[in-house]
């Protein structure tokens, strides 16, 4: 039987407030690129119900394994890692998303399993061979895992989410007797930007740089973003200058995103920023400096004063939306 699975892959679900994060479906798509693999999703939560049900709806899943414990209410790596390690012996691969959740957790899992991790898989070459970006995406390394198990994070910008399944996969609770540490305690969370589409998953992103020159001036960017139904991002320079909160930073050390449309306003395009947007389908740059490096990656460039151009563009988009009756 040619369909006999060779690899067994466990994906660690990322979730918050009872909802599965889109990064999990992208990990599934990455796992599907490994031939002849059985794919399970592990949901660790204080209340697994709704999350497991969403995970079970992803196409190509064999089953969803749940670990429901009150200690799993918050995603603390030191608490989650030993539970994942207890599940691991049945698997050839353990994957998590290359989001702050997965970046925090997966290396701890890998170390407990005695292997180094493959960070930021951008392409699968075979079940043990992967491509990943290094040097802020200025080089691509092909790496091979030779350990007894593959532990890896998946660069979510490189994969589309898995489709919805016709039929839900079975959900199976796992009971483990694993002692959990009490040395790490969740205190609080402050969510800064909630009124716009999520930067990491949005189809359209409008991003601003230092040239916006103030937090107030970001208003023109917000208006354009709202006209487009876009999420808002920023360069490190704009974040450091205090124009916008930290979680809007796009780049090597911020968020790596792959929207359909990325509009960079007054962003010069440091390599650290460009690495965060290279997978965008269409990049638009508006900048008064025609020599700015952002134009090297822009599909459409417009040299000029953004304070004049952006309101014009917003008006044109609003008029177009109204005229066609289409949803922007």
């Amino acid at each position, binding site marked *: 039987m040619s369909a006999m699975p060779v690899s067994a892959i466990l994906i660690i679900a990322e979730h918050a407030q009872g909802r599965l994060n889109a990064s999990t479906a992208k990990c599934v798509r990455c796992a599907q690129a490994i031939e002849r693999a059985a794919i399970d999703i592990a949901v660790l939560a204080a209340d697994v119900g709704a999350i497991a049900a969403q995970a079970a709806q992803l196409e190509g899943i064999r089953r969803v394994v749940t670990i429901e414990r009150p200690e799993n209410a918050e995603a603390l790596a030191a608490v989650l890692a030993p539970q994942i390690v207890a599940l691991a012996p049945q698997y050839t691969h353990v994957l998590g998303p290359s989001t702050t959740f997965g970046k925090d957790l997966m290396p701890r899992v890998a170390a407990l399993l005695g292997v180094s991790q493959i960070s930021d898989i951008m392409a699968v070459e075979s079940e043990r061979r992967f491509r990943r970006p290094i040097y802020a995406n*200025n080089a691509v390394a092909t790496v091979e895992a*030779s350990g007894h198990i593959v532990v890896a994070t998946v660069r979510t910008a490189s994969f589309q989410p898995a489709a919805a399944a016709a039929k839900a996969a079975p959900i199976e609770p796992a009971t483990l007797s694993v002692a959990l540490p009490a040395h790490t305690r969740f205190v609080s*969370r402050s969510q800064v930007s909630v009124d716009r589409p999520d930067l990491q998953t949005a189809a359209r992103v409008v991003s601003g740089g230092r040239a916006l020159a103030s937090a107030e001036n970001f208003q023109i960017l917000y208006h354009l973003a709202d006209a487009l139904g876009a999420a808002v991002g920023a360069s*490190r320079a704009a974040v450091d200058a205090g124009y916008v909160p930290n979680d809007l930073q796009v780049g090597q050390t911020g968020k790596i995103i792959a929207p359909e449309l990325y509009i960079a306003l007054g962003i010069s395009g440091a390599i650290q920023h460009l690495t965060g947007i290279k997978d965008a389908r269409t990049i638009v740059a508006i900048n008064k400096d025609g020599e700015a490096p952002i134009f090297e990656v822009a599909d459409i*460039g417009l040299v000029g004063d953004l304070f004049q151009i952006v309101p014009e563009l917003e008006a044109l988009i609003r008029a177009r939306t109204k005229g066609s009756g289409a949803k922007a």
Partner: protein
Amino acid sequence: MNRILVGIKRVVDFSVRVRVKPDGSGVVTDGVKMSINPFDEIALEEALRIKERGLADEIIAVSIGPAEAQQQLRTALAMGADRAVLVQVGEPLEPLALAHVLLELVQQHQPQLVILGKQAIDDDNGQTGQMLAALWDRPQATFASKLELDGAHARVTREVDAGLETVEVDLPAVVTTDLRLNEPRYVKLPDIMKAKRKPLDVTTLAALGVTLPAASTCTLKVEPPPVRARGVRVASAAELLTALEQRGVL
């Protein structure tokens, strides 16, 4: 003695536009400016501030790398580290091996806190801190943007995708730094002179008595990234709108 151990990695300077070697074996590093990994500089700065607040007695900067990494350790000493240790290795080690070496240093020096960069800007692995915490069986607080010490605990604000998260960890613990934890100080000339007299020990894996785990990853080749096709220039907002419509993105 209340100690802080800080990791220092020698990397290609962040401002260098790296080039891939034609044979695909890596990137060109000959004649290229090398520096302390920026996140490690932030780690050291945070340790210095903790010491200046009277909450630590000694800061040890450690590096695992080539003989030339002594340059970066000298810079760390000039910034204010009290002493430095270089574990000299011929080939770069993978993250799990680095964590094993750091664990040995931790066991020797018994620090209250280990502060490492959240990632190195060369291999972008982002693993070593979490791995050290796992092997040491101690807490980790990654991507720190604020660090407060209170006796036996540290309260750490972390930069996560959704915003900011605060955790409390028992000490000793491993903290990894994010960009906005602090702004590292500049080194002053008299400090460079003073640093020459500070102890910098060079040791080896054998002398430390570390047995490395078998390698579990191997780099087969390194290539330049795919280049994007050359774009078009437009002259007005109206032309931009047309170009967007033509590409079918609106």
